[in-house]
């Protein structure tokens, strides 16, 4: 096994472990930490898929923006809030087992049957190409997403203002 494979396996374990932690841990903070771990793992997988740009964007947006936002909300609410019990130990175990079984089943039943065991062909998509695509074939989704983000920002600001003024 080469170092590359080893790291790849590690990345997968980290991703899956993080996902499990995100779902199963009792405290929201740990769930968030799990989520961040999983996101990092996915970013690592993107590197293996020859798209470092996407990996960096994954970290930048998911870790840098989304999870920080969630963390921010947790901290704001946190000190005042007694966390309810989310999982019992048995429930945790069962859930993990269930997820694993379902995944395995789906994987065997559909994925392996649908997609062939292909090797990775060579690939030369650069950041430039993705950009081109956005302004070419995908211009409508791109515009829509921009609009969505603007609306989201406005909405978030409005919500924040509203809650402040409400008091």
């Amino acid at each position: 096994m080469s170092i590359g494979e080893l790291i790849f396996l590690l990345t997968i374990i980290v991703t899956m472990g993080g996902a499990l932690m995100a779902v199963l841990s009792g405290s929201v903070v740990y769930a968030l930490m799990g989520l961040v771990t999983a996101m990092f793992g996915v970013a690592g997988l993107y590197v293996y898929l020859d798209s470092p740009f996407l990996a960096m964007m994954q970290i930048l947006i998911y870790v840098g923006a989304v999870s920080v936002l969630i963390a921010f909300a947790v901290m704001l609410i946190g000190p005042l809030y007694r966390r309810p019990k989310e999982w019992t130990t048995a429930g945790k175990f069962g859930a993990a087992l269930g997820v694993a079984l379902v995944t395995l089943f789906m994987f065997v039943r559909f994925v392996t049957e649908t997609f062939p065991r292909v090797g990775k062909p060579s690939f030369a998509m650069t950041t430039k190409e993705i950009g081109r695509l956005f302004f070419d074939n995908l211009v409508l989704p791109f515009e829509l997403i921009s609009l969505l983000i603007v609306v989201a920002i406005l909405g978030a600001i409005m919500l924040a203002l509203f809650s402040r003024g409400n008091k």
Partner: protein
Amino acid sequence: MTDFFYNYLHIYLFVALFLLFCGIAGVVYRRTLIGMLVSMELIMNGAGLNLVALNRFISPENAYGMAFTLIIMGIAAAEAAIALGIILLIFRKYRHIEGGDLKEMKD
């Protein structure tokens, strides 16, 4: 050369599936809204991974998968911002963030 682990589509798809089901389990069983949000993000991550992997293996001549993953990221960010605004608002109003107990959403 090509028989490294990381050259097989199935592994990526397996991880993506795993993320998806973890996310679903979380959304269903989590009681706090923030916990649900975390699980939603997991689902989105799974979807993104799926797209990129398929793009990479099935149709390497274009980059639609990657582009859509970027779009998903944008949506995730926007969704997180809005969701958190709502959660904070709910918290201010009801002093808790447990989804199951939110019977009335009208005001």
